[in-house]
């Protein structure tokens, strides 16, 4: 199974080595370009041979990303990428597998697979492009579209209450849960890298702009000039400070987070300190559910805990049983139980 050929790439690879020969086919201005760029940039730093990287996606604008990566890729069917990735990773644990999905692909038709992949903790990096709309099919609402939103399929406004992708991930006992922004290149790159190094399912929601069917969906807090004041970038071990002047913070009042102005006797010591590694997900869930305008939107790695990953457990069980019972003998297995001779 394992390919014996020596790993390539004695010369360190560069971003361009990960650019495929396929023309990128998104609308000009689409947020997907930036996510692609960061993804391509990240690759050389992973320290994984190009042939050992695989991108698997479902269907949607977002799901076209694998075509543009000069790695192995699989543009599968709507919502099912995690299932294919699970089969691949279970059989080929040495591969670095990314799953690319959208808010429709991942949370509408594919919600159940996401849930089960995360509880099993298969070692995949799942990147969900959340533009709060169905882009490819031209503008119907998605499970993350705001309540009341008018779209092609809801001319009088939706009556569906949206899902919070990170709450779903936490509800599924996800071990790595993070959020980033298409246009915040550095942050996105950082989060992608963290995800790639996590063992187990890493789930990243990326707020992404669809400038054709849902322009400005995240603009209110993502726009560069207001972003520092309207987002909170969490870092492990650091107090939760935000604001252009780093003058605001999040303090816990019992179970409730509140925004405080630093100064006037309030110091960083009063603020909540981010702990991404705590098993107890209560604080993670609180962060995932903080939303503009009531709170700053939280970006960063919200949760990153250790739990053995599925494919490792699978391999270990096989090794254990084999150690105990000896390697299987097929001929002996044929004869299992009573046999008799016919002459």
């Amino acid at each position, binding site marked *: 199974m394992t390919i014996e050929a020596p790993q390539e790439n004695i010369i360190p690879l560069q971003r361009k080595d990960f650019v495929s020969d396929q023309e990128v086919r998104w609308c000009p201005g689409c947020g997907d370009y930036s996510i692609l760029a960061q993804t391509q940039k990240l690759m050389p730093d992973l320290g994984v041979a190009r042939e050992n990287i695989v991108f698997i996606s479902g269907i949607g604008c977002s799901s076209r990303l694998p075509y543009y990566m000069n790695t192995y890729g699989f543009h599968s069917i709507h919502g099912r990428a*995690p299932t294919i990735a699970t089969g691949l990773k*279970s059989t080929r644990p040495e591969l670095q597998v990314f799953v690319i999905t959208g808010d429709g692909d991942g949370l509408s038709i594919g919600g159940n697979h996401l849930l089960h992949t995360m509880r099993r903790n298969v070692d995949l990096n799942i990147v969900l492009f959340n533009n709060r709309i169905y882009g490819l099919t031209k503008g119907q609402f998605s499970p993350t579209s705001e309540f009341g939103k008018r779209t092609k399929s809801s001319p009088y406004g939706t009556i569906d209450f949206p899902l919070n992708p990170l709450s779903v991930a936490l509800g599924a006992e996800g071990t790595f849960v993070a959020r980033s922004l298409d246009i915040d290149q550095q942050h996105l790159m950082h989060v992608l890298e963290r995800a790639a190094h996590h063992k187990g399912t890493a789930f990243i929601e990326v707020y992404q702009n669809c400038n054709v069917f849902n322009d400005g969906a995240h603009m209110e807090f993502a726009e560069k000039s207001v972003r520092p004041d309207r987002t909170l970038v969490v870092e492990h071990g650091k107090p939760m400070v935000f604001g252009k002047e780093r003058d605001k913070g999040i303090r816990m009042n019992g179970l409730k987070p509140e925004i405080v102005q630093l100064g006037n006797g309030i110091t960083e010591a009063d603020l909540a300190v981010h702990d991404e590694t705590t098993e107890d997900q209560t604080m993670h869930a609180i962060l995932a559910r903080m939303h503009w305008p009531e709170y700053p939107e939280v970006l960063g790695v919200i949760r990153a805990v250790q739990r053995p990953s599925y494919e490792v457990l699978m391999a270990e069980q096989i090794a254990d049983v084999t150690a105990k019972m000896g*390697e299987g003998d097929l001929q002996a*297995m044929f004869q299992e139980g009573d046999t008799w001779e*016919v002459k």
Partner: protein
Amino acid sequence: MATDGTKSNGHKVEELDRVTIRFAGDSGDGMQLAGLQFTNTSAVFGNDVSTIPDFPAEIRAPAGSIPGVSAFQVSFSSYDIHTPGDSPDVLVAMNPAALKANIADLPKGGTLIVNKDEFTEGNLKKALYPTNPLEDGSLKSFRVIEVPITSMNVRALKDSGLNTKAIDRSKNAFALGLMLWLYERPLEPTIRWMTEKFGKNPEVRDANIATMKAGYNYGETAELFPVQFRVAPAHLAPGRYRNITGNEATALGFLAASKLAKTPLFYGSYPITPASDILQELARFKNFGVKTFQAEDEIAAMGSAIGAAFGGHLGLTGTSGPGLALKSEGLGLAVMVELPLVVAMIQRSGPSTGMPTKTDQADLLQCMFGRNGECPVAVVAPATPSECFDYAIEAFRIAVKHMTPVIFLSDGYLGTGAEPWRIPDIADLPEIEVKYATDRDTFKPYVRDPETLARPWAIPGTPGLEHRIGGLEKADITGNVSYDAENHNKMTHLRAEKVARIADDIPDLQVMGEPQGELLVLGWGGTYGAILTAVQRAQAKGLSVSAAQLRYLNPFPKNLGDVLSRFEKVLIPELNLGQLALIIRGQFLVDAEKLNKVSGRPFLIREIEEKIEAMVGSKVSV
């Protein structure tokens, strides 16, 4: 297994339509009553019956001891029968002593129903068992169904008002209920009888009825499979044999395929009757490196098999009809990306949930056409339980060589039915050659082998072969996304032709009997035994009839058209409304006659025999 009214000599085709059951328990267990009631019900049901009781030798042997065992044997059949059967097909053992006393009579492959509650240390000792036969593997050659009869009976009667002893005495009624369910017999005659017999004692009457129903319902609720009829091959070739069910043979066949291909097996599945056995069997083979994945649903199971195939493993999934419906979109993807994988499809009665523990053959057209677009997959179908082994291997041989999904089409009767299996020598099994692409200079994802039209299997981890596949139409050779009209037409034909060319790689259809004549009876799948027997009987009567059983349903063997053309008439018996017949008629324009039955049960030999005689009978006397 009883033979056709004459002595069993191992050389005659065994009788399909007859079953012999032995009820055995402690003398206090009421086995005679249970047996008698079963007999009466069967007689009322219209069967010919023949019985033989077997009372304990000693009148007051200690409870639980071997001498205290009482038994009752009943044989019932849709033909005239003349004996109560030489040996039972099914043994019901209410305790260890009953097992010990009777197990020697149960032929390999027989069905054994045990009351597992009674296999306590004390009872085992009384029956002189040093170890628990339910655990020590000594019953491996039987189809063992363990049922907690004692405790279920107690639970069923906890509000009956009866005392513990009286409750315990009713457990024969639980066993009877279960057997009535297994052989699809009505409860009413026994309820009438109990009402009469225990009329004076309504508590006992109600208790007996209640626990009998509980037994009956247990069979249904726990999706136990009705005990199937079966045929053994006419001649047993020399060799070492074991008993095997179709599903066991299937699992072993896939395991063997993995060994022959020197490639690990991955099985992604979601439990469903009657396919769950395969998951359960394969899950045991960890020390063979088999990976089993119980998915969240059939869609995920299908996806996982595709992922495994993409990774270069033997990707396998398995299910029954409702599950195949759910897998159809994913199977279409597998066709588009042209990866080798196998879908083990174990039919049950439909439509919808249907009758999960019964079997028709009504999923052939779903296998052929149940996907969007022109979406061909290969289909193979074993005809007997032990053939499941061979066709599991064959399915992977075809998949890997021709780079295509293959459906392995079995059914509940084949899967849960058992027969003697001649244990093969691994050295005699076909080789499965797995070749991964590695040459970066010549590699193109959709370049094709000139002979088979298979595309290369280029798996992640191979340097220089990085490429992208997916469900959008592929450009010829490069595999890039293409919306080009000519290309789509070409690729549609290439995909069809690739599957069609498998015909060059499979054996011709064998005709049983004269290669030409008046009537050909053409079948597929588990109808084999009934068709073969019926045709042999007709041949014995001098009728010009031959039989042929299709094991390859897509593509057909190359000589099929030729075979059909050599007969004046063609009869296609199927447990559906004419699915193979539609394809045969449509493809060969042969006016094939249909014999259909969709009752969740196999054909009776006589149903086919009568039809044969109706079609060619007039010429018998010539």
